[in-house]
């Protein structure tokens, strides 16, 4: 029910439907108690614009917490009736380094009558989250740890269901990936120069020949790692000034299947093979520019079909699909 509502809400918000209308649409579908005719669902909807302006409507949920530099920054709320429901509405702005914490009453009440007489409570949540806010530069692990605490409060037994959403705004991250030599060797210089021109981006090179090209232009050495971390993925290399250098075709294909598998092991994988590192780098970015050389290595053609590998241009197009579904902006330029 909550997942479905969240899907509907985000779908409508993407289409620029106003927050009130989204609230009203969802509120109409909320189940009500047949006997007392009371809604027993609660709801918070938050819209954040790219400039940090926030619009929040809360209905019967614990109130959103905003932390600024580790301290509570109160939010001005006004009561407003929407779709026959008594809600709180607020407008505020968030900045990088702020932290927004949304959670359901299952979190607030965690441990009630057991570990805590009155449950984890606002203070329990605030104290936990403040401690972790400095430990992580992104929100996911903070939300995971909060839910772990809740689970522990319920002593691992099934209690109330608990949801938490943590938002830590930051500036968008760009990554630029160079893979494959250009179709015409005359363009080598220009393409590599273009790649190197991206200063505030994570710079990734996928491909042995491509790595050699970049090293040559930078007049730096390319050093191949001494380790095969995963026997099916050739080792990574390093070039000073480049964030990640991997082999090409096999690593790209492996990364695509990791991203498509839906599993998330590669996020935490301690083994640092090229495909795992590439998945991590690609998903860290919000905006990706892929500079794709279309020169074909004749030696590859023999094994490409027998191993059912996608060609460079094919695999890059698929990566674009998968990453776009993760709401990333992906731009492909071919040479």
């Amino acid at each position: 029910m909550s997942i479905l509502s969240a899907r509907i809400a985000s779908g409508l918000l993407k289409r620029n439907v106003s927050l009130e209308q989204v609230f009203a649409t969802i509120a109409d579908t909320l189940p009500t108690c047949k006997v007392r005719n009371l809604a027993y669902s609660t709801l918070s909807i938050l819209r954040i614009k790219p400039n940090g302006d926030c619009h929040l409507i809360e209905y019967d949920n614990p109130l959103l917490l905003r932390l600024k530099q580790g301290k509570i920054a109160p939010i001005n709320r006004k009561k407003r009736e929407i779709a026959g429901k008594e809600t709180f509405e607020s407008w505020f702005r968030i900045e990088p380094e702020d932290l927004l914490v949304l959670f359901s009453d299952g979190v607030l009440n965690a441990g009630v009558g057991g570990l805590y007489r009155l449950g984890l409570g606002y203070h329990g949540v605030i104290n936990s989250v403040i401690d972790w806010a400095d430990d992580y530069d992104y929100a996911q692990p903070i939300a995971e740890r909060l839910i772990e605490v809740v689970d522990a409060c319920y002593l691992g037994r099934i209690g109330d269901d608990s949801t938490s959403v943590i938002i830590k705004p930051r500036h968008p991250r760009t990554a630029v990936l160079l893979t494959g030599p250009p179709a015409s060797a005359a363009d080598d210089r220009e393409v590599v120069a273009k790649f190197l021109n991206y200063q505030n981006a994570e710079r990734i090179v996928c491909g042995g020949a491509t790595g050699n090209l970049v090293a040559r232009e930078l007049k730096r050495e390319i050093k191949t790692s001494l380790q095969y971390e995963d026997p099916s993925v050739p080792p990574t290399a390093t070039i000073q000034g480049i964030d990640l250098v991997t082999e090409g075709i096999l690593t790209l294909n492996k990364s695509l299947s990791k991203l498509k598998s839906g599993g998330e092991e590669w996020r935490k994988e301690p083994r640092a093979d090229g495909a795992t590192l590439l998945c991590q780098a690609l998903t860290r970015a919000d905006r990706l520019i892929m500079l794709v050389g279309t020169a074909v290595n004749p030696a590859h053609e023999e094994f490409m079909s027998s191993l059912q590998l996608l060609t460079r241009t094919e695999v890059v197009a698929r990566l674009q699909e998968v990453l776009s579904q993760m709401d990333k902006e992906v731009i492909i330029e071919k040479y």
Partner: protein
Amino acid sequence: MAILMVSVCAGTSCHLLGNQAIVDVLENMPPSLQKQVKFGYTSCLGDCGEGPCVTIGDKVLKHASPERVLDMIKEELAAKK
């Protein structure tokens, strides 16, 4: 004693053409050879159609097999003496 540098290509083609068998044999060389040889990986050497490729000193061995790599290491070491 001068050390002989051996680099096994870890590019796409050489990887698929079995560079691991060569690394295995390098890792298990007799101690007398191990003392005189240092080995690692290199990125694509540009002879992908003729892999696996290995550089031994300043020579490139194409279509390398574990046996040929060992033979050539011995030859190079002998020539150096």
